[in-house]
């Protein structure tokens, strides 16, 4: 069989790059799609969680006697219903069910399963918890103080030598960079150093965590849930409950938003434990208040950034101190913030130091490019100040210092082919950047970076008896990925998009798939689908060759059919995929392609954003009048969904920049756990977000794909800050830049 090989030029594509209707669209607009709360089972109970009313308290005793006696209560669980668990899962267990202490407002203390909602709620009121209230800390700076209340009295900071002898709330110190930063600052003719702070933002998904668990008498169990990774849910729940992995089958529902927030378990282990104890199916759904209080936002931060330049505008040194508030347990977001902080620039002398700080807040969870928007806000604000002081165009300044292929990144590796320079050049020519600013408006720009990942991937591609194709993948579709999967299968097989259907298979149907995060799905699922399609084509070519009594190398696959090729192949009419599939029973049986791979070779991506804003100097309110995203997609498989990812990331970033933020009172309780007081942007808050797709292919993917889902949320915080600076002359160093914050900055200027 001959093949066109791995490297296809853009001109070869027939369906890649088109914009067909999404296959899940009708179900979603008609209400037929089933989300986490949409499944029911005979005899189903309602599960509810008792949550801590204190940010920090020792749990001296839990008395469930009165609740258990209430008619209709079928099961109550506490920490004793779990474990023992491996060391690697202890924090996860502690987060979903408090162990010896309540560590944050909303921490789960117990859970109840009852015949209906009102009985379950009444039972929660009857559970008596004896708390010893402890001093708390929710602020990142306060938590780092020597005399701060300790969230965990056995936490010793990792990453410092010698190992500390005294516990603290600093979980880890991380350092990245190269060169001699002090020497670099010595070469600088201009240095800008500023401090910044950001508040925690929630992923803001509309569908709350929800699940239905059924634990059978024989130990096998089923779980239906809304998640970004049902294989992760399976393995985690199995570990927490001591279930054999093969006994637990998890099916992912449709998902009403995730954005990183559904990469952890919350209700799922509780529902399974309640079902195991009651012998009945148990359904659990979080309220919005529970979502905010207990289903992790991203980090808050306190930062200092210092950058020096020479007289020509070349950066000589860059240094960042990034203190990230990590919630009640250590995480990995600080690391990613520190690694990505200066990734847009080619720097000889660079250092970023991160401190991961534990507080009495919910465990931080990924939020779209976790950690990167935070450090980017600080770095790109200082870059903007430098360009102003140098009297340089901000795009020209960035182009002068931009990372290019072969440059050593600030986090270590040298870059392969990347698209930052092209992105910046495109911004420079973009009509938005070229347009004159109306009086009173300000314009800001910023660039952003994200790593993008591949990972464990297993897919199955079946050729049906009529020549249509079913692709089974193991990652929930959170951004229209099914359409992209269908496009790549159709492209590779040379058949119409409409002839391919992609489904999300359950955990018993495929090998392990990493979670839908890290902007990996189109890259790694696509890579696997292309390989599986090539395997299926090879089988079909072999079948046709046998029917013609030809050697396999004397046939080729062209446009969804096998045809003879070469000088001695003879003159046979091509046979279509449908004809080969129809003959499959007689030629060897069902035809399929499979791919099980650890997909490596994900390509990093860069974006540049432009914003025009106007600030009401009486109220401090900022109005965004125009916004443009330019980003490298490698290759846009379905351009409409790529644009949607760009727009969605920008919209969420604008919300974070201007309004969204956790508010904690002196009592350590969250003051705004609802969408009335935690304000995400609605359509009327935003202009049309224009997009421009750059395509600098990723050599690690057959079609050149890079991840696109996360990079777009990285630049907006700084873009808006820089636009406010342009409009008012005032630098706002605090996110969210809500009206009171901006007004205060204006008054102090």
């Amino acid at each position, binding site marked *: 069989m001959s093949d066109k090989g791995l490297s296809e030029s853009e001109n070869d594509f027939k369906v890649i790059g088109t914009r067909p209707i999404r296959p899940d669209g009708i179900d979603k607009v008609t209400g037929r799609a089933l989300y986490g709360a949409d499944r029911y089972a005979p005899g189903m109970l309602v599960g509810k969680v008792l949550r801590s009313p204190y940010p920090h308290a020792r749990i001296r005793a839990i008395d469930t006697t009165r609740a258990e006696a209430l008619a209709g209560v079928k099961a109550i669980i506490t920490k004793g219903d779990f474990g023992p668990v491996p060391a690697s899962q202890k924090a996860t267990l502690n987060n979903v069910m408090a162990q010896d202490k309540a560590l944050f407002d909303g921490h789960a203390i117990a859970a109840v399963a009852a015949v209906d909602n009102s009985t379950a709620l009444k039972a929660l009121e009857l559970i008596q918890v004896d708390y010893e209230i402890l001093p708390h800390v929710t602020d990142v700076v306060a938590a780092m103080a020597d005399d701060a209340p300790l969230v965990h009295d056995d936490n010793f900071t990792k990453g410092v030598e010698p190992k500390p002898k005294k516990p603290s709330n600093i979980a880890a110190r991380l350092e*990245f960079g190269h060169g001699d930063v002090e020497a670099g600052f010595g070469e600088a003719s201009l240095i800008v150093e500023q401090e910044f702070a950001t508040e925690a933002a929630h992923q803001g998904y509309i569908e709350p965590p929800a699940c239905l668990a059924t634990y059978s008498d024989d130990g096998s169990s089923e779980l239906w849930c809304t998640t970004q990774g049902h294989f992760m849910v399976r393995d985690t729940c199995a570990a927490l409950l001591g279930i054999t992995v093969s006994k637990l089958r998890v099916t992912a529902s449709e998902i009403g938003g995730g954005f990183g927030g559904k990469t952890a378990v919350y209700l799922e282990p509780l529902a399974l434990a309640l079902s195991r104890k009651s012998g009945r199916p148990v359904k659990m759904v979080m309220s919005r208040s529970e979502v905010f209080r207990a289903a992790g936002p991203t980090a808050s931060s306190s930062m200092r950034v210092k950058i020096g330049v020479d007289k020509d505008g070349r950066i000589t040194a860059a240094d960042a101190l990034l203190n990230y508030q990590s919630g009640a347990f250590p995480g990995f977001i600080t690391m990613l913030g520190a690694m990505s902080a200066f990734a847009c620039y080619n720097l000889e002398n660079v250092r970023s130091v991160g401190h991961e700080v534990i507080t009495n807040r919910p465990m931080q969870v990924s939020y779209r*490019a976790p950690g990167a928007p935070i450090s980017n806000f600080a770095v790109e604000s200082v870059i903007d100040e430098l360009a102003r002081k140098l009297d340089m165009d901000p795009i020209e300044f960035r182009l002068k210092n931009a990372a290019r292929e072969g440059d050593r990144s600030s986090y270590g590796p040298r870059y392969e082919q990347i698209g930052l320079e092209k992105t910046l050049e495109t911004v420079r020519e973009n009509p938005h950047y070229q347009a004159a600013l109306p009086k009173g408006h300000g314009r800001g720009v910023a660039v952003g970076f994200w790593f993008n990942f591949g990972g464990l991937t297993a897919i199955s591609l079946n050729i049906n008896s009529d020549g249509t194709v079913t692709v089974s993948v193991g990652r929930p579709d959170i951004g229209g990925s099914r359409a992209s999967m269908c496009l790549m299968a159709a492209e590779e097989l040379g058949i119409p998009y409409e002839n391919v259907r992609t489904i999300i298979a359950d955990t018993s149907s495929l090998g392990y798939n990493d979670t839908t*995060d890290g902007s990996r799905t189109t890259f790694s699922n696509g890579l696997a689908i292309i390989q599986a399609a090539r395997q299926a084509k090879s089988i079909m070519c072999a079948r046709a060759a046998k029917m013609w009594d030809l050697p396999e190398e004397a046939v080729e696959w062209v446009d969804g059919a096998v045809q003879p090729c070469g000088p001695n192949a003879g003159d046979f009419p091509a046979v279509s995929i449908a004809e080969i599939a129809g003959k499959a029973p007689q030629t060897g049986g069902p035809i399929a392609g499979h791919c099980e791979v650890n997909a*490596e*070779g994900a390509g990093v991506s860069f974006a540049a954003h432009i914003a025009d804003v106007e600030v009401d100097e009486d109220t401090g309110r900022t109005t965004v009048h125009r916004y443009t995203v330019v980003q490298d997609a490698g290759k846009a498989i379905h351009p409409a969904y790529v644009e949607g990812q760009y727009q969605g990331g920008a919209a969420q970033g604008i919300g974070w920049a201007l309004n969204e933020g956790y508010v904690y009172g002196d009592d350590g309780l969250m003051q705004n756990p609802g969408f009335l007081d935690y304000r995400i942007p609605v359509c009327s808050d935003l202009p049309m977000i224009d997009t421009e797709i750059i395509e600098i292919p990723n050599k690690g993917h057959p079609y050149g794909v890079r991840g696109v889902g996360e990079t777009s949320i990285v630049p907006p915080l700084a873009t808006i800050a820089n636009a406010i600076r342009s409009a008012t002359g005032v630098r706002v160093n605090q996110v969210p830049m809500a009206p009171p914050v901006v007004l205060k900055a204006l008054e102090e200027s």
Partner: protein
Amino acid sequence: MVKVVLWGGLRSKAKGQSELQIAASTIREMFLRLSEDFPDLEAELEHNVSVAVDGKVYRDALFVTIDDASEVVILPKLQGG
């Protein structure tokens, strides 16, 4: 000998060194040699690192080949959102 660069957090487990020369032809061999020379690194290499070879980042790929011309950087294990 392959040149291996360690990120800041690992240096303390490698007696303060940020660059090492290792005789290895795969990532697995590199991990074994590093663990022999610096036992404190072993647990980190087992669970917590990604490896960049000539700019391409691998999260879990023990059998990727490396040679004397390779530039290898050991990074924290990357996760996304």
